[in-house]
């Protein structure tokens, strides 16, 4: 019994920072409708700044408590600056581009953190007055954890007072419910948005700072927390602070007890709870009706037509050009080209899901990674030949997409997107934790192609053939009745249902098709690298795909090809020049979003269309 109590308290203690981050994320989304990926970065910055300020690495040491508060305030100011300088410019852009911009911020902060604090973990000091442990039911319980347990309810209470007792808080609640009406009553949105961002950033910064005595500060904590925070707001309901509080406790307790009772299935537990909550209440425990997420502004959207002769010729020329590449290129260039083709395929499968089927995924890495692991496991455990392993990869990816898709098509908009991310993270954790089968972070080595395909040239041709074939098949599906059905559901669910289309079923199968093709890319990737690590399932892979599709222009059929090519080349080239390529790419992404909210191909495509019209009209 004592053990249960202690474990419960442990859970409560680790719920605190999760609640702080999730509450901020939720409040910001409620008012500004921005899914702030950079919220994890605020958390990480809070932790690093607290470390610096408390220890006095630069300037005088502030001491523990002042340092913690100063760090949170500093992050709040950064948040405000970010809102004023960047987000204000893009409130009119499609939601996905806002998301992309905040992800650019994530990349920049990641490298800035490495630049300033270096790659090694930083261990913070103990909190003065709260060192050591107290004896509780015969167990030693850290004093500081008692403080954290109290912090969650205190912050919840403070937020409650802020939202009930101050005019500002009441305005925030009003704007969360009906922004337009608030404006019609003279509520100044600009100021409200900035202040909400400041509050959200403050909470995230505080969450990171108070974590200092408990866990080492490290440079991957941003993505770790943001994924958990997404799960929390999905379970708790977007825009609800109390929901975030409940959900972070549920999540932390599941972890606390899961780890002791069934270490292997902790994540499955989390997943089950989330699934049950979402099937019963698609908007989370305390959420309000759906917040739609639009892929594009979409008023004057052109129809998706089979590509023009010219575009087809370009693609054909591209394939031909690649076919003669081995004549001139060395093994390194070939492997780079092979990798890019694999990501072209990955991006195309994601565009099929987002652009054609209208389901935005933040977790397409799940399918890519399952494809890779399916192939690798088949080789490792069954000693299967490459061909069979390849099929196993596709099969596992398709199966995974069927399971994930079954849940996802029950939701729409932001909830759907966040759920995909959560599923991808579960897949990642399984690969990471299930040592016996997946080898954990040691990965699976020795996933080499069959002897006939072992040479870089042959593997290059194999990849070219598979990618081209996949491209042709997907195109065919897009223009087949099934693809039309997907587009129908994307364009207008109301109309689709009114002509007898079963939206859920069509979208579910669409999800599986996209997953299977991402699995093809993943399996190829496994054989290219000769090994598989949990990284293939991680958030950056999902986001890379998102960036490629959005850069290329989400509704352009050839968009993902250009997007993947540009983005992957940029990554590879930058990585060879600088260690801080994320910083450069982050800046480029933000620049692109501000300059070309339609994506590269979308942008030049529109310009080209305009030019053609001009030429036609001029005598």
């Amino acid at each position, binding site marked *: 019994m004592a053990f249960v109590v202690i474990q419960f308290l442990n859970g409560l203690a680790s719920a605190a920072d999760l609640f702080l981050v999730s509450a901020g994320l939720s409040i910001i989304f409620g008012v500004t409708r921005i899914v702030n990926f950079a919220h994890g970065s605020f958390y990480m910055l809070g932790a690093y700044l607290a470390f610096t300020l408390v220890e006095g690495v630069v300037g005088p040491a502030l001491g523990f408590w002042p340092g913690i508060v100063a760090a949170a305030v500093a992050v709040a100011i950064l948040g405000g600056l970010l809102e004023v300088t960047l987000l204000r410019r893009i409130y009119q852009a499609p939601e996905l581009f806002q998301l992309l911009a905040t992800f650019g911020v994530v990349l920049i902060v990641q490298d800035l953190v490495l630049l300033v604090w270096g790659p090694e973990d930083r261990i913070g000091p103990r909190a003065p007055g709260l060192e050591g442990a107290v004896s509780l039911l015969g167990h030693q319980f850290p004093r500081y954890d008692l403080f954290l347990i109290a912090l969650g309810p205190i912050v919840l209470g403070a937020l409650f007072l802020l939202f009930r007792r101050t005019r500002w808080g*009441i305005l925030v609640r009003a704007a969360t419910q009906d922004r337009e009406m608030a404006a019609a009553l*003279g509520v100044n*949105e600009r100021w409200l948005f900035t202040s909400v961002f400041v509050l959200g950033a403050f909470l995230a910064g505080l969450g990171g700072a108070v974590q200092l005595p408990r866990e080492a500060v490290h440079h991957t904590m941003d993505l770790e927390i943001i994924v958990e925070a997404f799960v929390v707001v999905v379970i708790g309901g977007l825009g609800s602070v109390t929901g975030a509080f409940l959900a972070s406790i549920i999540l932390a307790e599941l972890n606390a007890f899961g780890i002791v009772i069934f270490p292997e299935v902790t994540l499955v537990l989390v997943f089950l709870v989330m699934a049950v909550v979402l099937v019963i209440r698609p908007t989370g425990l305390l959420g309000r009706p759906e917040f739609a997420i639009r892929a594009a502004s979409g008023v004057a959207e052109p129809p998706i037509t089979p590509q023009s002769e010219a575009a087809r010729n370009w693609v054909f020329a591209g394939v031909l050009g690649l076919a003669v590449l081995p004549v001139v290129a060395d093994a390194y260039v070939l492997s780079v080209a092979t990798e890019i083709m694999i990501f072209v395929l990955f991006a195309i499968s994601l565009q099929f899901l987002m652009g054609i089927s209208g389901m935005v995924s933040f977790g397409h890495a799940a399918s890519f990674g399952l494809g890779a692991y399916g192939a690798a496991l088949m080789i490792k455990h069954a000693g299967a030949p490459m061909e069979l392993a390849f099929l196993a990869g596709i099969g596992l990816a398709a199966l995974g997409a069927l399971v994930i898709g079954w849940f996802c098509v029950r939701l729409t908009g932001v909830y759907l997107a966040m759920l995909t991310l959560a599923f991808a993270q579960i897949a990642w954790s399984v690969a990471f934790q299930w040592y016996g089968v997946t080898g954990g972070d040691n990965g699976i080595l020795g996933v080499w192609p069959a002897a006939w395909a072992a040479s870089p040239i042959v593997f290059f041709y194999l990849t070219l053939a598979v990618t081209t074939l996949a491209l042709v098949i997907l195109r065919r599906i897009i223009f087949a009745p099934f693809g039309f059905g997907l587009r129908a559901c994307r364009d207008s669910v109301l109309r689709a249902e009114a002509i007898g289309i079963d939206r859920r079923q069509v979208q579910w199968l669409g999800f599986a098709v996209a997953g299977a093709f991402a699995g093809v890319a993943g399996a190829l990737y496994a054989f290219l690298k000769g090994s598989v690590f949990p990284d293939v399932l991680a958030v950056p892979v999902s986001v890379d795909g998102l960036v490629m599709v959005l850069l290329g222009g989400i509704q352009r059929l050839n968009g993902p090809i250009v997007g993947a090519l540009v983005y992957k080349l940029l990554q590879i080239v930058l990585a060879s020049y600088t260690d801080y390529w994320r910083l450069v790419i982050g800046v480029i992404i933000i620049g692109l979003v501000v300059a070309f909210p339609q994506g590269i191909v979308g942008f030049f495509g529109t310009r080209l269309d305009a030019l053609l019209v001009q030429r036609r009209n001029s005598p």
Partner: protein
Amino acid sequence: MRLEVHKLCAFYGRAQILFDVSLKLERGEVVALLGRNGAGKSTTLKSIVGLVEQRSGRVVLDGRDITYAPTAHIARAGLGYVPEDRRIFTELTVAENLLVGRQAPRPGAPAWTEKSLFHLFPNLAELSDRPAGEISGGEQQMLTIARTLMGNPAALMLDEPSEGLAPLIVEQLGKAILTLKQQGLSILLSEQNLHLARAIGDRVSIIEKGRIRFEGTMAEFAGDQTISRMFLAV
């Protein structure tokens, strides 16, 4: 406060809802904008405060062009808007709803407080701490007007305030609006309820299928039965 609307057009997607709607609201007068449902009354009011994205024409408030001003600025300039569907913040209490509407007092316009509004709408006083989503339709209608008045507007646009209300409540409402008029507010009242409009309007504009079809004094309108038969009756 004077409000002038010149050749206002409004669109939802490719559907044109308003065709060159022009209106004039002089200081201290009540203009009734009449029309059947679907005629374009609500769209006219929404377009004036900038809640319809695609619009053209000109809206001038006391000599200032506010056609493309942000909605919040229009409200702060002294033009209060009470929407047809009430748009109460249901999760806030009655008192909190009023607080959202609060703006600084304006020279030349009555300054409202929660107390003076409770005097105007006595029902609201006891409901002060109730969630606004739980009060009755009539009470919500009172609240939405009171909420806008908290901004101390010099001109007020009311969109079908009598809709769905019992006759007794409509009567109370009419009295309240008359009080506002006596205090010097300019009021643009969109209505389907002829009786209410006749009781408080000085002038009448009739809109049908997105176009203004009649403009005149209340006496002219009331004296000619054919007008209401043509544009308002079934």
